[in-house]
């Protein structure tokens, strides 16, 4: 499946209620070891209740500058949460459905090394 088709899909609960849009996909480089890099697996989807478009990551990282832009971005994408892939029941064209009783997790990224 192509990533840009998944991005922007409606995020739905098991009973069909829309809770937001999928704005990003969380990955982890921790799968089966390979020649250069370990396999990169999908560990979850990021859902934004109020926006459908791309963010600059202010709500997921510790960056706070420039102040005006950071505040505006945090406000635009407020309420973002992470849903683990094991809580995803179904992926279809334009929508992603979560299992009943899914957990809303903290979207913060762990600090990444600067390369």
């Amino acid at each position, binding site marked *: 499946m192509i990533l840009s088709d998944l991005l922007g899909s409606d995020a739905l609960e098991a009973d069909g209620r829309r809770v937001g849009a999928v704005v990003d996909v969380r990955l982890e480089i921790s799968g089966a070891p390979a020649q250069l890099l370990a396999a990169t697996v999908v560990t979850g989807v990021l859902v934004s209740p109020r926006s459908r478009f*791309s963010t*600059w990551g202010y709500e997921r990282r510790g*960056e706070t*500058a*420039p*102040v005006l*832009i950071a505040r505006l971005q945090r406000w635009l994408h407020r309420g973002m949460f992470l849903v683990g892939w094991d809580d995803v029941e179904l992926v279809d064209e334009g929508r992603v459905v979560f299992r009943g009783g899914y957990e809303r997790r903290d979207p913060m990224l762990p600090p990444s090394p*600067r390369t």
Partner: protein
Amino acid sequence: MKKLFAVALGILTAIGGFVDIGDLVTNAVVGSRFGLGLAWVVLVGVVGICVYAQMSGRVAAVSGRATFEIIRERLGPRAGLANLAASFLINLLTVTAEIGGVALALQLATSVDPLLWVPVAAFGVWIVIWRARFELLENVTGLLGLTLIVFAVALFMLSPDWGRLAGQALQPGPPADEPVATYWFYAVALFGAAMTPYEVFFFSSGAIEEKWTEKDLAKSRLNVLVGFPLGGILSIAIAGCAAVVLLPASIDVTSLSQVVLPVAEAGGKVALSFAIVGILAATFGAALETTLSSGYTLAQYFGWSWGKFRKPAKAARFHLAMIIVVLIAVAILATGVDPILVTEYSVVFSAVALPLTYLPILIIANDREYMGDKVNGRGMNLVGTIYLVIILVAATAAIPLLIVTGAGA
């Protein structure tokens, strides 16, 4: 001399923003109509481009990423494409004007028809981009462009009434005999010219051509602090000369010979030849800068291999794009259209390109994944944000002013 060469990149970048053919004529026009009344715009522009060129140079040195790569990464492919289209058109129109300007300067020197000089000028621009090393290119054109200082010298030699000049500069608002809209149109045009996006595209890509790293941050700052203020001074000197000689005599600036008239009056043939050399070097340098910028922006958006430090065969699409740009420029000039008039309209595209260029720079200059601990300080962020607002205001006002004033008629 070596120290002078160290700041050649800054000087060459500034040439494209302050004294290329479009600016030479605009500054003379402004001087002949408003005196030094718009000098404050040049100062505002100099501070703005210093702040943002410094940021983009730092980003390039620390993270190795040139400005247009960042634009696409932050704004996404759609907004990035909008900026690319606008910037490409600005570059193309400017290259056309500069090659035309080189031909006009050669006409001043030799009285041979400029249309005959156009293919020579175009070939000259291309062969330098094709074969000359980046350092050679920037050192020669930067150094020769400095002969434009003759305009500042001429201003002193004309023994102007300094009090009257200062009065014009400090007077708020337009003079009585010029419409307000025209005053603000030229203000926006001068500001847009001082902060033209291709300056940061060229400066950041040049930083990578020169292989600057974190250790060269002081050098980057020096380039900015020497180059752009110098460009601003030259800009004001040209306007000042026009204010002293052309304004009182109500001489309209319609061709390059009026631009150099004050210099000839002040210092005779010797000064005039310096001015012609300076104009030739500045327009040639600006032609190089904008042609390279068109290559840089396309290559960085699409992810092509680029750079004069690579063999052309290793940066093939980059060189092909620039060859096509030069050919289109020659074709436009062959139709006989006035290239300088054409650049007045490029202010329209600046309205799109300016905000879409400077916003990503401000954001990435704060991103620790790119910059480590070399992120912006709070002061820099404050000034940067203020200028972003000014840029948005100028961008919104540009097109209405263009229409209302008929491009400053």
